[in-house]
């Protein structure tokens, strides 16, 4: 009866208000309203932009990308000079971003995992030391670390003439690190090919060993065989072919070093600061990941007769990785995005080339910023989809 009286009473609230009291209709109304407001806002902003651009006689267009850039980039993987196009400058910048992000992620991961494990150590002193390191690193802005390291190298390191040498081939000075560059002779390809074959062989052998273990329970010595294939074999080939690799060592000529590779202070400062800053966050992630594995798992592994290292390798780490990977992904992304701070010390990454000098010289704020943002968005999406794939692969498969 009450249902009937409800349907009787609602129409009395009258016409259009009836829709508002129907929860489904209300949801539709709210959504239509939201979208309408959003479209109105976008329309308004775009209209303003069109009027404003018209007023100063600018038009949108990307032809500036193919005009000469007219500026130099001091570190480049590609052949680049000031007559190259803005597009090429942007690509060089993008490659520099990748270089810093890649190096940074590599160092941050290693340092972060080591610190995370040491933070859990029972040793009181080591524990406290790592705690101080982590807190000092992550409570100070990364930009400050970048400037501090850069300032230290440029101001406090000795000049090239008094450079600190490591043997006769590595030199540390306020112009960066000078190191030998390899000069391969023709026969060197044999070593390179052996190395690649060795890696492939190791992967195949690992699969084979897993198959054997699944079928018979026999454990093959994967580590030794891989080491032999990847390291020993290429070394043997290298010496058989007569050591066909020379090194060009840097030497002092005039006021600076000639020959060899130079790692610029900007690259060192940026990589080191980003990597150490991020490593503090990774250390905390690793620590909480390992702590999240129930101690019963370790005890159970012990009861099954696994040794300590096997317990770590087969029981603790695989389970800890499930907790570690999602926050690790966001740390990698943070590092990549933070690499845009390069602009503060004049390292030419994508933000400093396309979003910095090109923007200022051509006055194309709109196009440059849209491109830079789109590039960072693509990198973010690519990295997070790769890590999601990895995460899905290692996650717990429940019944």
């Amino acid at each position, binding site marked *: 009866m009450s249902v009937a009286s409800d349907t009787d009473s609602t129409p009395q609230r009258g016409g259009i208000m009836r829709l508002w009291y129907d929860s489904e209709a209300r*949801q539709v109304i709210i*959504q239509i309203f939201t979208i309408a407001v959003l479209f109105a806002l976008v329309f308004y902003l775009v209209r303003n932009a069109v009027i*404003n651009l018209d007023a100063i006689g600018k038009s949108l267009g990307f032809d500036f990308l193919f005009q000469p850039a007219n500026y130099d980039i001091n570190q480049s993987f590609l052949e680049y000079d000031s007559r190259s196009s803005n597009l090429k400058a942007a690509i060089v910048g993008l490659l520099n971003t990748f270089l810093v992000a890649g190096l940074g992620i590599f160092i941050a991961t290693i340092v972060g995992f080591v610190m995370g494990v040491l933070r859990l150590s029972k*040793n009181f002193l*080591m524990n406290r*030391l790592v705690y101080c390191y982590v807190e000092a690193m992550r409570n100070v802005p990364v930009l400050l670390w970048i*400037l501090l390291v850069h300032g230290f190298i440029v101001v406090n390191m000795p000049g090239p003439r008094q450079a600190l040498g490591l043997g006769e081939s590595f030199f540390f000075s306020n112009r960066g690190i000078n190191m030998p560059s390899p000069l391969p002779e023709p026969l060197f390809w044999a070593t390179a090919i052996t190395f690649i074959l060795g890696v492939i062989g190791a992967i195949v052998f690992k699969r084979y060993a897993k198959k054997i273990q699944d079928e018979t329970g026999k454990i093959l010595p994967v580590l030794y065989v891989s080491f032999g294939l990847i390291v020993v074999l290429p070394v043997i080939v290298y010496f058989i072919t007569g050591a066909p690799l020379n090194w060009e060592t840097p030497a002092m000529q005039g006021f600076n070093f000639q020959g060899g590779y130079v790692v610029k202070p900007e690259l060192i400062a940026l990589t080191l600061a980003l990597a150490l800053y991020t490593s503090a966050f990774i250390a905390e992630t690793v620590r909480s990941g390992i702590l999240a594995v129930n101690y019963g798992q370790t005890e159970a592994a012990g009861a099954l007769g696994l040794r300590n290292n096997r317990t770590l390798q087969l029981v603790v780490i695989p389970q800890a990785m499930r907790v570690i990977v999602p926050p690790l992904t966001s740390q990698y992304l943070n590092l990549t*995005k933070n690499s845009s701070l390069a602009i503060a010390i004049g390292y030419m990454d994508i933000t400093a080339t396309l979003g910095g000098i090109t923007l200022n010289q051509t006055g194309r704020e709109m196009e440059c910023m849209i491109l830079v943002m789109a590039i960072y968005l693509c990198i973010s999406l690519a990295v997070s989809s790769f890590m999601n794939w990895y995460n899905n692969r290692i996650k717990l498969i429940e019944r």
Partner: protein
Amino acid sequence: MSDAKSYEPGQHPSLPPPKNLVGWQRWVWDNLFGTVSNTVLTLLSVYLLYLIIPGMLDYFVLDAVISANSRAECAELGKGACWAFIGDRFQVFIYGFYPAELRWRPNLAFVLLFVALAPVLYDNIPFRKYGLMFSLAFPIIAGVLMVGGVFGLEPVDTRLFGGVLLTIVIGVTGITFSLPLGILLALGRYSNLPAIKIVCTVFIEFIRGVPLITLLFVASTMLSYFLPPGTSFDLLLRVLIMVTLFASAYMAEVIRGGLQSLPKGQFEAADAMGLKYWQTMRLIVLPQALKISIPGIVNTFIGLYKDTTLVIVIGMLDVLGVAKSAVSDPVWNGLSVEIYVFVAGFFFICCFGMSRYSMYLEKKLHTGHKR
């Protein structure tokens, strides 16, 4: 037999534990030298400490020069760090270029900040209700005090803001406004309405996908194109809006984590009680979700506070900006390490304090339902 008393079975009083299981010797054994690897780690740490501590102490404290008039004079007085510079520039570090005769206004605002913070941070202070009202009104009061232009206060150009003052203005504004905005975004992303969900998700993912620096560039170079012709507004205000939007996207993700960890039964129970959507959220869902996400929220605050340094890239002089421009001062040439270490100390105290407070809060709100 003479000195050994005999007891009935089970009546023997408890003996003290063996000497080698208690006391500092045992602690040292357990924590420093128990196993081979432990001993190696101890020796390694002692060596590291030996490398770091004496050198640092000499350079930054013992051999340091506290007062001098120039870098050259510093170098004559001692071979350690030259702190004289900090004293020389202290006012700029704190206020930027805020007019000297008006500095009582930021000072007053700073004192009021603590008055406004107290009722928010601690719940056992008297008259907390009125205190919270004051806290709500504080952003407006502080804004009026600093910028002026009304009530007979002399207007101050925001381009004169700098140093610690600017850092705190951006940090406090971002923190204050990003939390409510983040809550709304998180609720939007968690909502059942597809249109609202999509809009919030796209916004959050876009902001999280680009570096803050590009957003600041947008604020400084591009934003004026999207305003009605002839209008423009203050650069500081544009930066504040961008920083708030940026932090709110991260905040939304943290709070969404809290929302997702609530069991579905809570929502269903609220529905069964006949609560409407906003009542459910206000009374049931958010109190629990926010409590769970406190560590994440404070981490976002700390991140935001550190990110305020990025404004130096668009030419604003916050505390790091003052430091950076000071490094290139010819009279004090070559002091980058001292200056940056000083600024690092400032940030460390602020951020470490925040993280300690979050631990206190977690402990206080921990009601025994931890899973």
